[in-house]
């Protein structure tokens, strides 16, 4: 088996090498042509960066030429709800970028907007210097590998791969008898600008002046094009030989060249996956979009395909944008990972940055296992959490409230007290194969620890966290994430000392409560009391008042930031929880305020193992 794998990889490598060898020459000839030929290519006037100081790139920015695609202020509104809110990011040429997030975070919508299946309500998508928002999907130089492959069952393997090539049109310059280029008014470019104008007229986000300015710009372009003819082109289809050649090369890359005549329905899941990839890469897209492509495969197959995809990316040199909700997959495969939640980008960075230096509690909670605590800076590189002071490596202002992340593998366990250790009580211990996972209680707070050393359940252990193992983050301001909430015996949610009357049936699809207060889903009954959950609340869903008598939570205003049209407040409660609140009204620091949160606005996620609560 191993031998066979090696043989296949060798074959794959040879095929990829031949792709480059064979396509090298014609491509070079084709390339400069392709750039000027694309009928809708536009030269957007670039503002000279040296003149206007505002447009000088930020230090982290890279030159525009290195960005293959850039999303600028992209917003998508579905039925009045903003599913993507002012999204800005770019992808480097040849990069492997993964969009990672829980379902409904907007990652798939982002991908679909790049593919052209959705149109942003506002904002631009710049692909190689040109805004592709008005370009329909069948004219975009990007191709998609779909989640369930979406192969055409009426065609065989060859037919599926050849589908796109048969419809592909190659522009050829029109020449008159003397060999001079024929000049014509470029109607398709004019149509492109007309669609841009139509799009901007409907834009619900940008200001009126901006709208008028952009529309005027497009109108000027149209007026210019109407009077200035450009070299004309005609479209030619690929010949049968060209198609056959490219299909076979693509099939060789995915190791399916001997299966060209097979019916799609007679292939295994992994083989179908390969056909879907071959179908996309044979069109030589500028960007390959992959929408959870490995989701339908079994674990073993998925691991193999991960490595193979990574190898393919390296050899082909195409930019990959990959969507997944599997954090391990994201960390394994990507050059950079973009973590999303609630339509907002939480963090973009390399896998190590994302893992070691999460920007906020959401990212820390989503990537890997982590302990997240509320902390206070008590001195230079000193932070207080778990009821004691720790030395850390991050520098934050004195007395600032922060989120502290400690990875379970960064906690050392000892059976005897030593320097810098603190005691805890082992609540539970689970053997996980190469390590033990402990839940250790320090007072009322829980520390999750992964260790290779064995300790009996119920015993007292001593822990040490080195300064490098403590990561300090600014308090999250875009979302309230409470990672240590518990459902009590009345099926209410406890956040710190506050309780909320929530609808627990939302935790499980198609579930209901029975007369005894148990949650019933099909055959299963769950006793939810003591269940650990993560609660997220959007700042705009929290109501803030001066009247503390009827509020669910009372606290003092810790900080207040003006965000253009609203204030973002951090309210600190007596039970050491922080709530981020969005409000149009001004409050001053140290004001005592009351907060109330509509229970139906609280989003819950089960944190622990639900099966442990089954009755």
């Amino acid at each position: 088996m191993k031998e066979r794998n090696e043989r296949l990889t060798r074959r794959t490598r040879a095929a990829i090498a031949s792709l480059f060898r064979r396509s090298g020459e014609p491509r070079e000839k084709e390339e400069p042509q392709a750039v000027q030929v694309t009928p809708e290519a536009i030269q957007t006037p670039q503002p000279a960066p040296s003149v206007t100081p505002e447009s000088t790139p930020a230090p982290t920015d890279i030159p525009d030429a290195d960005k293959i695609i850039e999303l600028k202020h992209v917003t998508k509104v579905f039925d009045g709800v903003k599913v993507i809110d002012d999204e800005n990011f770019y992808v480097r040429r040849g990069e492997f970028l993964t969009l990672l997030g829980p379902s409904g975070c907007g990652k798939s919508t982002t991908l679909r907007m790049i593919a052209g299946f959705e149109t942003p309500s506002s904002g631009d998508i710049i692909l190689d210097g040109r805004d592709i928002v008005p370009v329909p999907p069948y004219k975009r130089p990007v191709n998609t590998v779909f989640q369930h492959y979406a192969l055409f069952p009426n065609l065989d393997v060859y037919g599926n791969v050849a589908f796109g090539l048969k419809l592909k049109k190659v522009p050829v310059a029109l020449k008159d008898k003397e060999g001079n280029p024929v000049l014509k008014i470029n109607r398709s470019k004019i149509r492109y600008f007309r669609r841009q104008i139509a799009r901007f007229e409907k834009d619900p986000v940008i200001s009126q002046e901006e709208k008028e300015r952009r529309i005027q710009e497009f109108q000027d372009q149209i007026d210019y094009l109407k009077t200035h003819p450009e070299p004309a082109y005609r479209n030619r289809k690929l010949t049968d030989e060209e198609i056959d050649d490219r299909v076979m090369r693509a099939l060789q890359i995915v190791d399916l060249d001997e299966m060209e005549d097979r019916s799609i329905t007679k292939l295994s899941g992994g083989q179908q996956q390969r056909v879907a990839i071959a179908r996309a890469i044979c069109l030589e897209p500028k960007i390959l979009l992959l929408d959870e492509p490995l989701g339908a495969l079994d674990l073993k197959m998925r691991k193999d395909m991960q490595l193979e995809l990574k190898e393919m990316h390296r050899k082909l040199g195409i930019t990959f944008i990959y969507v997944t909700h599997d954090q391990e997959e994201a960390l394994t495969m990507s050059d950079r990972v973009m973590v999303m939640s609630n339509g907002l980008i939480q963090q973009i960075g390399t896998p190590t940055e994302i893992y070691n230096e999460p920007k906020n509690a959401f990212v820390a909670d989503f990537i890997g296992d982590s302990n997240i605590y509320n902390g206070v800076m008590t001195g230079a590189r000193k932070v207080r959490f778990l009821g004691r002071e720790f030395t850390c490596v991050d520098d934050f202002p004195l007395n600032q409230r922060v989120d502290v992340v400690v990875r379970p593998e960064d906690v050392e366990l000892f059976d005897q007290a030593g320097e810098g250790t603190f005691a805890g009580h082992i609540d539970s211990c689970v053997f996980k194969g190469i390590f033990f996972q402990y839940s250790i209680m320090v007072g009322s707070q829980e520390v999750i620890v992964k260790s290779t050393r064995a300790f009996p359940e119920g015993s007292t252990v001593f822990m040490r966290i080195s300064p490098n193992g403590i990561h300090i983050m600014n308090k999250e301001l875009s979302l309230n994430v409470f990672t240590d909430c518990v459902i009590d015996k009345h099926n209410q949610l406890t956040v710190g000392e506050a309780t909320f009357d929530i609808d627990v049936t939302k935790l499980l699809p198609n579930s209901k409560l029975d007369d005894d207060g148990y949650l019933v889903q099909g055959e299963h009954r769950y006793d939810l009391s003591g269940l650990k959950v993560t609660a997220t609340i959007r700042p705009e869903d929290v109501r803030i008042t001066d009247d503390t008598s009827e509020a669910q939570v009372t606290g003092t205003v810790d900080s207040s930031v003006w965000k253009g049209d609203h204030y973002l407040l951090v309210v600190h409660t007596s039970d050491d929880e922080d709530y981020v609140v969005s409000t149009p009204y001004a409050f001053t620091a140290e004001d005592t305020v009351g907060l109330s949160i509509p229970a139906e606005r609280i989003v819950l996620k089960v944190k622990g193992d639900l099966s442990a609560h089954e009755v």
Partner: protein
Amino acid sequence: MVTFKKVLAQSFIWILLALIYLPILLLIVWSFNSSTVLGVWQTGNGVNGSGLTGEVYEALFRSEEIGRALGNTVIVALSSATVATLLGTMGAMGAYYCKRRTTAIIEAVNQIPVVNAEVIIAMSLTVMFVMVGNIIFHENLFSFWTLLIGHVVLSAPFVYLNVKPKLLQLDPSLYEAALDLNATPSLAVRKVIIPQILPGILSGFMLAISLSLDDFIVTAFTSGPGLLSGQGTIVTLSTYVQSKIKKGPVPAEMRALTTFIFLLVVGIAVGYTIFNNVRAKRGSSHSSKRAKALARAEGRR
């Protein structure tokens, strides 16, 4: 006990089969006898005077009346089935891509003609044609066209019902995949969606034909002069039979004709199955095609 159950199940099948096919078998046998009274085997002619004779078939081919009715029926069935298939398929695809509310309305509207009594459809169409003819055109509208409309109204909802499940089985991202692979929306529908729902469209077409073939009420109400009947009202097989049995026994030629139709249907069904099996086995071979092309190129050189 088990065997008893088996016997029950088996006997059910055999009784059903017997009830369906025995009468047809009888019909075929009787079509070789020239008796004009049903149930009385006429002897004295045919092979050795046993009554076995092809006279009925001879009469059938000589009868201009039946020929005309048959021709009319085929023309009306084919044309109305084609129009109904087009309308029903477009309707189903439209409803599939509509918002859920709109789809629900379309479904409900489509359901009514299916469960409605045919006589209501026929009556209402007649009233409408008379009214429109009197008020707008000031002439009698009844012709082939009103008959065609009648049959389309009758069968289009059934085509819709045949196509809709095929669309629901469709992977929703197939259409997007086609768009992604350079296909314009119309190409995507032609090259990907239509091939996928073709079985539904075909069975809808066949159903439309069979509905139109033996429809009597709508035909009787909406037909006017035209087609092979010339200036007279269009006569189809069903109206022909009806007009005959009003006056006397079923003409003997009808036995031969129905035998013919039955054999034709059996032929089509068997042929379709064989065609499908052969196609599945054959499969296309790109590698052999490529080898041939290569050989050709070599030869040229």
